[in-house]
């Protein structure tokens, strides 16, 4: 048996250790949601599962896209596509802070040498109509996670309350691995037969998507897609609860997919700089209306299931 090194040596090692740790805490290890989202919170395993009375514990990696953060692969920290690690436990356990600190230890952050702090940062997602109280967690002045007790999602009070942890994986891993530029970070084991850096995997994608996001994306088409998604979401939710065969099926999840689409299209439009400050609020309001309607449907579906 080979000894596990105290600290991870590459990006994927950080992910694998988080997976192992949270699996050991009893979380279901889910996979990323197969749609473009701005953050791990958008995964229905967080947004929708935070609603309703049923207990839940899940963890997953979620590729996330923030078109406005694209820097053509040149910025040491900013990416338009990055990974979040997401944990959601409902009801929030009383020792969630300790569990969280355990996860830092698992990726090699020794609390005896580092300065770990819980600094107020109330989370709010205007597009999801969601908010919670919590902190950003600092390790030596570096924000390594977001820690939130969900109070409301889609306009519904969360009862019970979920505890949500979000790790910005690139930043966290860069810190743990002592790397200054994200593209230089070892992706797999640096001693592997074919060692790959983060840049080997993603530099070209960052360049291409940055150009597309900022310069090329067809704004008229994006706007049309936004409106289509919005209309489809409403259409799905307007369908009668009972289908042709007499089954009662509330379609919260398909409707929520359209909400996710609309949200991402809005982000793309924003990156293209075609949304003014006042229009911004209007678009956010439109996405929030979808999120609320989906949350209503999910709560209704939960009631049907119960």
């Amino acid at each position, binding site marked *: 048996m080979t000894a596990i090194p105290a600290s991870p040596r590459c990006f994927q090692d950080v992910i694998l250790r988080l997976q192992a740790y949270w699996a050991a805490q009893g979380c279901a290890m889910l996979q990323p949601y197969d749609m473009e989202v701005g953050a791990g919170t958008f995964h229905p395993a967080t947004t929708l599962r935070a609603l309703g009375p049923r207990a839940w514990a899940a963890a997953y990696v979620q590729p996330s896209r923030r078109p406005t953060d694209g820097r053509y692969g040149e910025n040491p*920290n900013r990416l338009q596509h990055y990974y979040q690690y997401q944990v959601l436990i409902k009801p929030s356990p009383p020792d969630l802070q300790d569990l969280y600190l355990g996860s830092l230890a698992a990726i090699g952050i020794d609390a005896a*040498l*580092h*300065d770990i702090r*819980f600094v107020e940062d109330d989370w709010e997602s205007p597009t999801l109509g969601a908010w919670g*109280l919590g902190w950003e967690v600092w*390790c030596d*002045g570096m924000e390594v996670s977001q820690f939130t007790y969900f109070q409301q999602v889609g306009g519904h009070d969360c009862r*019970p*309350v979920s505890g949500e942890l979000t790790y910005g994986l690139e930043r966290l891993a860069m810190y743990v691995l002592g790397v200054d530029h994200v593209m230089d970070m070892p992706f797999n084991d640096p001693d592997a037969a074919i060692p790959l850096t983060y840049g080997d995997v993603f530099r070209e994608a960052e360049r291409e998507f940055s150009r597309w996001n900022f310069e090329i994306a067809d704004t008229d088409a994006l706007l049309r897609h936004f409106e289509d998604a919005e209309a489809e979401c409403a259409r799905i939710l307007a369908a009668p609860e009972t289908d042709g065969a007499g089954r009662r099926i509330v379609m919260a999840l398909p409707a929520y997919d359209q909400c996710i689409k609309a949200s991402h299209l809005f982000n793309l439009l924003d990156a293209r700089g075609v949304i003014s400050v006042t229009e911004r609020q209007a678009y956010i309001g439109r996405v929030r209306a979808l999120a609320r309607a989906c949350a209503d449907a999910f709560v209704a579906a939960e009631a049907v299931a119960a």
Partner: protein
Amino acid sequence: MPDLLLELLSEEIPARMQARAAEDLRRLVTEGLVERGLTYAHATAFVTPRRLALAVAGLAERSAALREERKGPRVDAPEKALEGFLRSTGLAREDLEIRDDRKSQVWFAVTERPGRAAAAIVAETVEAVVRGFPWPKSMRWGEGGLRWVRPLHGILCQLSTEAGSEIVPLEIEGIRAGDTTRGHRFMAPETIRVSGVEDYAARLERARVLLDPAERAGRIRHDAKQLAFAQGLEVVEDEALLAEIAGLVEWPVVLMGRIGERFLDLPPEVLQTSMKAHQKFLSVRDPNSARIVGYVVVANRETADDGATILAGNARVLAARLADAAFFWENDLRMPPEAMVAKLDGVTFHNRLGSQGERIARIAALAREIAPLVGADPDLAERAARLAKADLASEMVYEFPELQGVMGRYYAERAGEDPAVAAAAEEHYSPLGPNDAVPKASVSVAVALADKLDTLAGHWWIPEKPTGSRDPFALRRAGLGAIRLILGNDLRLKLTELLIGVMVANMQASKAAEAISRAGLLDELEKKGLRQDVIDRAFEEFASESISDFSDEEIRNGLLEVYDLIFFLTDRLKVHLRGEGIRHDVIDAAFQLGGQDDLMLLVARVRALQDFLGTEDGANLLAGYKRAVNILSQEEKKDGVEYSLDPHPSLAETDAERALFTALDAAEVAIAPALDAEDFAGAMTALAGLRGPIDAFFDTTIVNAESDIVRRNRLCLLHRIRTVMNRVAVFSAVEGG
């Protein structure tokens, strides 16, 4: 006399809420104890990131016994009345007494409440306080229903005397009070058993928790100063940041680092803002060069490597932050200010007022118009206004909105703009509050005033005026800013004329073609106390400025808003001058003359008037004026006539009456030139000459003479007193007298 120790141990409390929470805890618990009959000697509250604590010394051991008597219904009252009384007292019929009360017999409830032990009262009080604590934001967690700022984990609640200590029996939502707490989250997480307040603080300190926030701040201040001093440097003072940092740590450990060479060329404001906003670092300055060269990190623990890892980590984070800032700075410098301004054409200022670009054009035109009035070069003022908002399109200000203005100055300087133009970019936002300095440079003043007047007029037109406590566009601040700019620079401006121009610029053409209701407008403005000739002039001016663009209805509404805005500014002026001890009613007395839109002149008149009213002559004259006006209005009401004809001296019968005629003539002759020369003190002196004759008149002469002709003449004489005095100020608006 037991002492109470209470500690509420939770997950991390936001730094900004801590001081207030400690004070609320002290106030609410002590008030609760006293309300329940338990007295105490003194109380002190403490707060750390994880705990709110309260020490109450010298508690009474028990509350005093209370005997309460309540009178109920009469014995012969309907049964329902008695039932209600029993319900409200919680007693049974046999517990009641019957007493004689006047002619009947009445039920009496006598309850004796024995004194209660301190522990029971403390338990009840603490539970009530915890359940109703006024956190600015609170939350639920898990499956519970309790609200606290973050999950509450432990309650230490203990009464102690010299003989020993006891746990107060108390349980809130499954959290049972005990006599234990925990030390520092990482350095001493073990359970600590305490007995009494002093023991608590001492044990916490051994467990690496400094309980007192002032002590933590003091330690940070001291250690930071020492560290900086040892390297010949000094810490930039920032008490607010220091207090915030003290709220982020239980065991402050101060570390100092140096900013990388390649970042030292960044503007010091950028270094300071970036370090403060993101990292909560105190800035460290080289006293010789006055440049920011280093920073102080306050960690929350000691480490085996004396903080080397922590400092290195913080340095890396800072380097990444500053690399961002340098990137913004260099990008911004590549773009000339004009190009930044051009970007603002596409940015909405307000959806009912158009783009930032359009707004800038309005402000530039207005600054040019104001320039000669403030002694500024019109070309420079216009240029300054055109570029003043350029930095809103910069990357640096997008990242750090608090640097707006400061960056504008740097960018204008680097672009080789006139120093006055660069200064205006920074100064035109001022004054931001009642204590912010007022710009003095003429170009800055022109742009600052133009900016504020445009903001006000625009929001008045759409309309988005402040209401009650709601003022989302900070219009009260803009109003006060305009007033302070005018008064602080001795600016002689006709606000009406200026604001009409600004209002017109802000009005969107409306095609509604409603017939103008000039008569209605006059009525409305007159009701607001404006003189007709003032309204007429303003109306002509308004119409000539805007006749081609607007319907009569719009002109009418625009003009109403201009006056509404002037009333608003007068209100702000009252608030501002209240701080200098100037009475609002004295301001009203001057303002109600109508057409008082030159604030310097208004304030000069107000000051002279208040000084005059403070003299014996002034006070007596005011009394005489009020007496004259009272009699006049009473008689006018009785007779249903207005006595406003010129009184005739030949009808005067008494010496005092004749003397009053002479005095009024003399005053009138003296007042007019004094007012023309803006010599308000002189006008007051002229008025002072009326005091003796008016007093003498009332002492010797009966207004309601038997002869109707004499009586009417005297009433007209009273009217003349009012007319003459009202040239100087509307004395009826002055309170008292």
